[in-house]
């Protein structure tokens, strides 16, 4: 392959009036990658994605998509890319089939090519039996599938998805990600933005966005590996009473309550573990379990944010 | 525990806050319609004058020149063209005024045949011809009226040496009541004022519930311990207040600036205005419940206003309309309100005259509000 880079983002910024939504981001996304842009609301995910889609011009820096400049050659980019905006960007009063045919017309997929493509898409998304339904009457998950089908109707080498699973239930979410994995398996370069950390784990590489800047860009496991310390899972009969006491222990960074389970994030597994055991002992609690638990992406993200903000206690920050 | 009145006021206060925050809607409604009032006032008080007149004077006598001068001397007609023959005159009527060729459009052509002066002075009855441009019917009608009267006066003057005062008592005597100078604006302005009053308050009321529905706050409101009548009254109260303030300012504008007289009892008008408002508010809230979105609510208001306009006597007196229309009109609040408003302002009408309309307003208002409350409760279950 002559050029391995699909998207080349060079110190791109975008401001709206006084506020900086994207603050000189540099990223490079390879061909065939499933790339996640992860961050909270307002981190600049949509702005970045819209600039990649060439529908918003950067106020600084350049973006090249497959070698095309996003400002000068905007229209060239639009035909090689599939884009799914946040929310439902399709016509609710048109049927599934009409939406697909309309999009096909727009992207110049016609005649025999379209007739061959449609059954493939129906099969892929499981929408065949709904093809005469009005899009507005579909469930949230099916709407997303339809939007995806429209975005890939012209078999674009690049797919940009802006929060495709927001507001979708877990069954549909899982189904949607299976579709994405399928596309990934076929070699489509996919950039997906999401506020959900569990979805981030399904990407090849992830850029964590915060306040318009990239906090980290790496594979999910590498990002999690950046967090010093470990997670301990404690179940006991009296978690509610224990939680504040545990927080008072030195070396405990944070506690998450999951029903009768406490996830304790600690700086150093062994020393803090013994401190916890001492505490349990002194509180005379004996029907407990204390196990190692995997670090979650969410914890890693929060660690990195706090690290960037300098809000961490010194012992952790160092 | 707080009283119903208190809770109603709580909701009304919140509605007022919404209105204060909306920087587009209220200013647009108020400024837009005040602007329209001024436009209408200006347009309807504009006299129809300086209409283009062409003359074909085949007589060229002293008498024909005097006749033309008399017509030209009127405010209504202005001599623009003197043409040699009738065909040219008719051609001129085909013309259309444009910025490049103003006054091209002839409204009236006077044809004075040869021998006009001689016939007139010798005691005969000469003919003249008037050709009117029917494409401008309003102007043409006015031009004809003025032309006929002026020609008659000129004829009397030349033939009998009589000025209009000399034969006035031989013509039917005319007294015009209430609007002595037949000022169009005296009729249209109160109508326009009622319309503004009506549209603004209806639009605001129609938004009251559809907005909550769109925002998703409607359900929250229903979960709170409010009673349905508290919600409806609370919602109606602030548009009413805005409407009332607007009414007062429009009333002041009409009487003080545009010179429409206020001959009757102001307190009566102020009280009946509240009754009228209640009826319209009920309608507005009802529309609001029917609409799914704010946009739909606004469109529904427009449609309703259009329908009501037919029956309201806004532009034309209801009494002169077909019987069926008159019957239907009795069920429309604005029709009664217009009778009352104009009656009090122009005719100095009092309770003794207006009571049937006031009773009708109260009855219609009560029916609408009861129906609205019933609908709200039915919606809720």
């Amino acid at each position: 392959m002559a050029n391995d880079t699909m998207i080349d983002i060079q110190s791109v910024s975008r401001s709206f009036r006084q506020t900086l939504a994207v603050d000189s981001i540099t990223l490079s996304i390879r061909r065939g990658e499933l790339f996640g842009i992860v961050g909270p609301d307002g981190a600049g995910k949509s702005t970045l994605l819209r600039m990649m889609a060439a529908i918003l011009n950067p106020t600084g820096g350049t973006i090249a998509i497959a070698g095309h400049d996003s400002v000068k050659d905007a229209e060239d980019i639009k035909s090689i890319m599939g884009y799914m905006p946040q929310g439902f960007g399709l016509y609710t009063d048109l049927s599934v089939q009409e939406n697909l045919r309309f999009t096909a017309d727009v992207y110049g997929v016609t005649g025999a090519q379209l007739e061959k493509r449609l059954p493939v898409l129906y099969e892929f998304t499981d929408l065949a039996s709904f093809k005469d339904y009005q899009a507005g009457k579909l469930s949230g998950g099916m709407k997303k599938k339809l939007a995806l089908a429209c975005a890939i109707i012209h078999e674009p080498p690049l797919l940009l998805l802006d929060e495709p699973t927001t507001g979708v239930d877990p069954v549909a979410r899982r189904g949607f990600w299976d579709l994405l994995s399928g596309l990934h398996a076929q070699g489509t370069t996919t950039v997906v933005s999401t506020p959900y950390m569990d979805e981030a784990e399904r990407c090849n590489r992830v850029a964590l966005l915060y306040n318009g800047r990239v906090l980290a860009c790496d594979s999910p496991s590498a990002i999690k590996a950046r967090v010093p310390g470990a997670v301990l899972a404690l179940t006991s009969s009296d978690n509610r009473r224990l939680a504040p006491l545990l927080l008072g222990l030195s070396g405990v960074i944070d506690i998450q309550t999951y029903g009768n389970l406490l996830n304790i994030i600690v700086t150093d597994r062994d020393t803090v573990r013994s401190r916890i055991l001492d505490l349990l002992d002194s509180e005379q609690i004996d029907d407990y379990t204390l196990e190692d638990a995997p670090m979650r992406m969410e914890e890693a993200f929060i660690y990195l944010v706090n690290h960037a903000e300098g809000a961490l206690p010194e012992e952790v920050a160092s | 525990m707080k009283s119903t009145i208190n809770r109603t006021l709580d909701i009304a206060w919140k509605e007022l806050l919404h209105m204060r925050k909306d920087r587009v809607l209220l200013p647009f409604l108020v400024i837009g319609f005040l602007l329209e009032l001024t436009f209408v006032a200006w347009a309807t008080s504009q006299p129809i004058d300086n209409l283009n007149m062409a003359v074909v004077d085949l007589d060229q006598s002293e008498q024909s020149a005097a006749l033309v001068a008399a017509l030209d001397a009127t405010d209504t007609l202005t001599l623009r063209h003197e043409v040699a023959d009738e065909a040219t005159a008719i051609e001129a009527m085909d013309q259309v005024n444009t910025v490049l060729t103003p006054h091209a459009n002839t409204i009236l052509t006077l044809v004075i045949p040869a021998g006009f002066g001689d016939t007139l002075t010798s005691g005969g009855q000469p003919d003249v011809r008037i050709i009117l441009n029917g494409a401008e019917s309003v102007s043409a009608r006015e031009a004809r009226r003025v032309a006929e009267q002026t020609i008659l006066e000129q004829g009397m003057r030349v033939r009998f040496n009589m000025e209009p005062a000399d034969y006035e008592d031989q013509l039917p005597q005319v007294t015009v009541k209430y609007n002595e100078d037949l000022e169009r604006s005296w009729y249209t302005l109160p109508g326009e004022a009622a319309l503004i009053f009506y549209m603004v308050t209806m639009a605001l009321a129609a938004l009251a519930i559809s907005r909550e529905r769109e925002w998703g706050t409607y359900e929250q409101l229903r979960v709170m311990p409010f009673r349905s009548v508290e919600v409806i009254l609370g919602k109606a109260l602030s548009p009413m207040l805005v409407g009332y303030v607007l009414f007062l300012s429009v009333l002041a504008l009409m009487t003080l600036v545009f010179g429409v007289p206020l001959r009757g009892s102001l307190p009566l008008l102020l009280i009946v205005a509240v009754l009228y408002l209640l009826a319209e508010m009920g309608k507005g809230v009802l529309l609001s419940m029917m609409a799914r979105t704010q946009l739909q609510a606004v469109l529904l208001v427009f449609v309703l206003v259009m329908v009501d306009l037919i029956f309201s006597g806004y532009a034309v007196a209801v009494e002169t309309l077909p019987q069926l229309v008159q019957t239907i009109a009795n069920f429309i609040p604005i029709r009664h309100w217009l009778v009352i408003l104009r009656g009090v302002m122009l005719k100095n009408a009092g309770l003794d005259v207006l009571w049937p309309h006031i009773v009708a307003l109260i009855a219609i208002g009560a029916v609408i509000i009861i129906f609205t409350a019933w609908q709200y409760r039915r919606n809720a279950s």
Partner: protein
Amino acid sequence: MLATSVNHLTRRFGSFTAVNGISFEVPEGQVFGFLGPNGSGKTTTIRMLLGLLQPSDGTATVLGQDISRAGNELREQLGYMSQKFSLYRDLTVVENLRFFGKGYGLSNATLRQRIEEVIGITGLQGQENTPTKNLSGGWAQRLALSAAILHKPQLIFLDEPTAGVDPIQRRAFWGLLYDLARTDVTIFVTTHYMDEAEHCENLAFIYFGDIIARGAPHDIVESTLPEHVLAIETRDPVQTLHAIRNLKQGGVLDADGVSLFGAEVHVNIQDPDLAKSVLAQNGIDMQRTYAARPSLEDAFIALVDRVDTK
């Protein structure tokens, strides 16, 4: 005492049964999660419990009162945060709170004090005069919670409270809920985010109007999915995926599902060690492997699958 007790509650809309004879109990002072996909009957149930909808059949009591007879007195003890953000976006934070407080009949003095307290609890200090529409998702959510707890309700219904809120804010929000639960307020939450559901002490899964599982999150996972997920990190995930699928189809590997998971391939198996050795024997490239317990989401999807295949 039970905060809520539901017995064979049913609601039909025409021929469609939205809620189909469900029963469950919510003990006082718990964080109770009511889960299900969109359109499964969650919101309908909450609406019945709030008295906004009459049940077609069955009974329920809320705070000891029968819902079909309860009136405004019950409403004054309930807090409700609806699915859509339901505050007046053109009003400021304090204006919103004042309206809600008055609606619930708080006197002016109490109201002033409560607003201050609630703002303290939810951390909205300094935002008092911000128009609500300018608040970001997480802050708006906090304000909605503030409004729902202003009148010190004993039971709060939260209908998908964190939809569209980012993880940092969601986490903080759950912190607030636990703080509230510590003051013996019962919290009834619906959600379809499974990572969030894991925070609850007790759960009920509703699917197409039926309750398909109940219990603590852990217990539900364990009873539903005893098997493990084997995650395989590999140099070429796509190729590995196809290779493992072939093994599965050939009957060499006994596995439930094989899917691509970013840079990893995930396989559901009974015995991780056995599977690893089978894969190794067949020359699958395994840079690193780890076995994990299925998540609540996995359990939920499995449960739904079972219902669907029935």
